[in-house]
């Protein structure tokens, strides 16, 4: 799965953490600090930091010489970018048509009952729940993505087991 879709849930080594600003700088310089590369830079920033803080957005705006309004506008327009911290694990339920007719709502219901409402993170910071429009795995409907990995032909039972495994109450 793409590196930029998921934020690694494991704690990063301190060295990497310290170098994050440097990695971001390198990404911007690779694009010659061009404003056209805003989306690529936001992808990189989110990959490094997990989510986009206001400070991060301001820094990017300054370096790419863009108005902060434009940076915020883009960051909020696209579903991929998150302005809030994510949970340790991420569950994305596909609500595409194929999954929908095969009972995806039942899966979402399990997550919402046990973890958090779609679009939010459980209070203990353990699980983020999201829905997706279609992840293109229609042959495996109903499908979901757990920490970047596609799980096909899911059932509420399998999902419950999975949640038990990671220690959700």
């Amino acid at each position, binding site marked *: *799965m*793409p590196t*930029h*879709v998921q934020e690694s849930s494991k704690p990063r080594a301190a060295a990497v953490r310290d170098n994050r600003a440097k990695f971001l700088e390198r990404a911007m310089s690779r694009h010659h600090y*061009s*404003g*056209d*590369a*805003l*989306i*690529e830079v*936001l*992808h990189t920033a989110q990959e490094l930091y997990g989510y986009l803080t206001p400070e991060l957005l301001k820094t990017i705006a300054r370096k790419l010489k863009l108005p902060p309004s*434009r940076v915020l*506008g*883009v960051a909020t*327009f*696209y*579903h*991929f*970018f998150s302005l809030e911290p994510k949970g340790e694990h991420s569950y994305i339920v596909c*609500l*595409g*048509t*194929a999954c*929908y*007719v*095969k009972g995806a*709502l039942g899966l*979402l*219901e399990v997550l919402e009952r046990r973890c958090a409402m779609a679009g939010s993170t459980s209070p203990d910071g353990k699980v983020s729940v999201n829905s*997706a*429009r*279609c*992840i*293109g*795995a*229609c*042959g*495996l*409907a109903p*499908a979901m993505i757990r920490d*970047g*990995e*596609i*799980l*096909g*032909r899911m059932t509420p039972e399998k999902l419950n087991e999975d949640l038990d495994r990671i220690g959700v109450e």
Partner: protein
Amino acid sequence: MTIEELYETQSAELDRRKRLENRIYCCTAAGCISCGAESVKKAIADQIRSSGREGKLEVCGSGCLGLCSRGPLVYSERDNELYGEVAPEDAPALISSNPVDREQLRFKRADLEAPFFAKQHRIVLANSGRVDPENVTDYIAAGGYQALAKALTEMTPAEVIAEIRTSGLRGRGGAGYPTGLKWELVARQPTDTKYVVCNADEGDPGAFMDRSVLEGDPHRVLEGMAIAAYAVGAQQGFIYVRGEYGLAIQRLQSAIRQAEREHLLGNRILETGFQFRIDLRIGAGAFVCGEETALIASIEGKRGQPRQRPPYPPESGLWGKPTLINNVETFANVARIIERGGEWFASIGTEHSKGTKVFALAGRIQNTGLIEVEMGTPLREIIFDIGGGVPRGGKFKAVQTGGPSGGCIPEELLDTPVDYESLAAVGSIMGSGGMIVMDETSDMVDVARFFMEFCMDESCGKCIPCRAGTVQMHDILARLTRGEGTPADIDMLEQLSSLLKEASLCGLGQSAPNPVLTTLKYFRHEYEAKLKEPAGAGAGDSAAAAGGEER
């Protein structure tokens, strides 16, 4: 590499394969990977190593083998057999040279003569499952990049365009604009800087054709783009891929790197004077970016909002320069047309819709997966013969084509042939190729509500008919599914539908009412059964059923 070297590489690879006893292809498309294809592939590789027959047997990954519902799939070249639901424990039997051992797997064999395979006509998917997408040599061995070589050395750009025009190829993204005409428009522009863009922002729920092509045969798309660039005079290309398609992104990145290393892309392509670079742009999750002007805005790093056309992108696109935008499947057809000629392509399909179309079958259907059929094939043949019909004795109710911009087609119209005009005539569209089958458990009003919710969330908010209209229509549909609607609500739905169709800025809003209009047309009784007023015996039941489906 030079053109001579291209042919030498091909014959060397083919010679090498002749010395092999067998080559085993493990489907490594997203579907099979998620049911354990990687461990099957590893088990086969380990087994080959431990049996010490590395020079004789080979295992490789491959693109989608089609029958996704039976994954993980493995294809054995020697005996031309396809095995489904393969487990790592099957590896010894799979590689065995003793037919008796292989007989153990007979229950896992898929019948390649079955209608699912026999009724398909593969052009775009010809290599899918027959080449290793991570290895450019495999693509070259299958004749890859020879069409590009032919275009560069034997044809002028105008001749390439003429060939595409003769073929009658039309845009596979849904709208069906003649591809040759579009290329000519871009070629005619006098400026030096032009761009070629591949639209791989496949957003329709239920559609995974482009994903499979990119994952299974990425070089075919690159070659098609390079030929297009030569024809229109562009030196820079972009592929705009959905961020959700991680594997496709990874395979494209590696394909571009390999092609550049071999001088099949980049500077001095095939040691001729032609140069063309391709960069990837990763989408960030906005359905509207499939619309061409929104896609351009997104590549430029802006909010993906469409703009008024004209000017159309062939005149003023990326950074104001002439830009050719085609869909993945359109580009995937190009190399074969150049190789075999426009006349050949034009001989396939119907009068106005030439060639083949790839469809993704999903929903309540026996054989979910990826298929490619000749244009003009009746829906019934696709769903019942190829798709195997509704599983477990269920009863077919409707098929949805074209995603949120398409419509629901009922049983009585199943003899409609799939081509651009016929599908439009029944109120749906060809769309990008998602086909979702629904049985009698699906509530059509709820289906319409589902698509309207989709359009409501994905509306970019720029024009009012779409921004406000989708919200109003969704409210009414939600009310109807709760059993609280009135006859006036249905009238209002119809009025709003025509308003959105007429007044929205881009395709998203203009086509958003299609699912509502078709369900109203073909399943009106389901709407009426949900009305509050004339509460018949049936109304209460179906409202309760709808309540169960609702979130």
